[in-house]
């Protein structure tokens, strides 16, 4: 954000704007930049998902639109969604039906404010950054219930209820698994957490106190898959039983908002995992051996993309869990394991 403020300072007449508004402009501009980048990333991820799924299942996927491997297919789909009729079911709760996509979308995108993409590329370095991510994440849950309820459709309601139950169950192990990083750093600020991992791959938290924090990473990754409703945890939208889950009744742009939010959430959990466990924007080897020649944000995005790819890979290789298996995994496996990890990391941090 500082760099954006400096860039804006180069604009003619910028300094003549009153101080009050000048304080706001960099914030707004950096939010818009982040929003645009994430929208682009989401478009790319949708295309990637289709190609990855196609190749895993030994088919081609989109091949025609745009020429090279159908790269423009998502753009065509986006235009199609924009032009589609916006249908509101006659017996839906109209107001809630219309508000729900925005609440979900807000929850997904607001969290990106604290994600540090590079040493100075972040909108805000909140000292409660991690808690903030969880706090705005809870908006999505409410939005999903809202969508499920307002549609006045039994499949939507089932999907919404399942999603809410699943997300609030898996929030607990993922929050506790994150403690394995917070305890050694002693801060909830994502920037400070990444700074603590500088100086090469051996300092990344995934390799700290082996295998304690590594297990924390695994637990976080599994729980985050469930939080973003990805297979093997996609029972909220299990198409064989629920049509499409909570967004069954949505069409056009309102559906697109749910879709965008889903992919933005994938990027969000991958970004948090990257910042916490995979060193964020830091370089693989110490600067003294090989100087960093890739810009921090590019490196960060590369790591995020690798994690997103793993999410897709799992989605297209694993079957869906049953509801009871899902709850069993969260409450009886991941939660005790993450609590044990917190004890272990706490002990090691204090006495070692």
């Amino acid at each position, binding site marked *: 954000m500082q760099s954006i403020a400096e860039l804006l300072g180069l604009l003619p007449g910028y300094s003549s704007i009153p101080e009050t508004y000048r304080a706001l402009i960099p914030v707004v501009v950096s939010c818009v930049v982040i929003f645009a980048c994430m929208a682009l990333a989401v478009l790319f991820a949708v295309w990637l998902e289709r190609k990855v799924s196609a190749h895993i299942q030994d088919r081609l996927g989109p091949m025609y639109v745009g020429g090279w491997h159908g790269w423009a297919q998502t753009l065509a789909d986006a235009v199609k969604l924009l032009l589609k009729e916006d249908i509101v079911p006659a017996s839906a*709760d109209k107001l809630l039906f219309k508000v729900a996509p925005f609440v979900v979308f807000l929850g997904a995108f607001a969290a990106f404010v604290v994600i540090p993409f590079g040493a100075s590329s972040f909108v805000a370095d909140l000292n409660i950054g991690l808690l903030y991510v969880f706090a705005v994440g809870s908006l999505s849950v409410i939005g999903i219930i809202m969508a499920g309820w307002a549609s006045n459709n039994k499949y939507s*309601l089932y999907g919404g209820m399942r999603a809410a139950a699943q997300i609030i169950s898996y929030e607990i192990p993922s929050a506790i698994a994150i403690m394995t990083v917070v305890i050694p750093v002693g801060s909830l600020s994502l920037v400070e957490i990444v700074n603590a991992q500088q100086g090469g791959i051996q300092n990344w938290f995934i390799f700290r106190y082996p295998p304690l924090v590594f297990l924390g990473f695994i637990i976080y990754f599994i729980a985050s898959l469930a939080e973003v409703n990805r297979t093997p945890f996609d029972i909220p939208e299990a198409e064989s039983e629920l049509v499409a889950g909570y967004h069954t009744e949505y069409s056009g742009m309102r559906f697109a908002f749910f879709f965008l939010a889903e992919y933005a959430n994938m990027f969000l959990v991958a970004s948090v995992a990257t910042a916490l466990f995979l060193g964020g924007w830091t370089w693989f080897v110490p600067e003294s051996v090989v100087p960093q020649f890739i810009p921090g944000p590019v490196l960060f995005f590369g790591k995020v993309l690798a994690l997103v790819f793993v999410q897709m890979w799992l989605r297209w290789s694993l079957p869906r869990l049953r509801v009871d298996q899902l709850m069993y995994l969260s409450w009886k496996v991941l939660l005790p394991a993450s609590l044990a990890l917190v004890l272990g990391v706490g002990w090691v941090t204090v006495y070692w």
Partner: protein
Amino acid sequence: MDNNLLAQIVFYSFAVLTVGSAAVVVFSKSLIRSAFALLFTFFGVAALYAFLGADFLAAAQMVIYVGGILVLLLFGVMLTHKLYDLNLRSETFQFVPALVVAAAVFAVIVTFMLRTSWHTGPPASDAPTTAAIGELLMTDYILPFEAASILLLVAMIGAAMIVRRRSE
């Protein structure tokens, strides 16, 4: 001075959001809309906490009230019968005594509001509060903290016991 103006705009917009959505919670005829309006009330209150420099409290408010309590509340509301056009009116309708009691309560509140010398110090610092809260919870306030934890644990075990299917 300029920053002050900006702060005031932010404060009043969040205050309006909080009070407005709280009014919807109270006056809405459908239970479910009341429950969803609570989302914005909680959000506004969290924003006011953040405004007062209580960053940890703001985030905790969102995580606990929006992510936990409101979800539970919604589940509860969805299980009730009449969700729309709920006519909440008691059978006996005592206008005069109700008016007297309400006016008295209002008068007491206003009197105390005007008499109290409100703390209007300098704005709270933006210094992080999380570490201090954590230390206090683990030292000075360890007993209430542990008591609350045990209470919650008992409630959790109780809930699990009730839900559990009885095996003969």
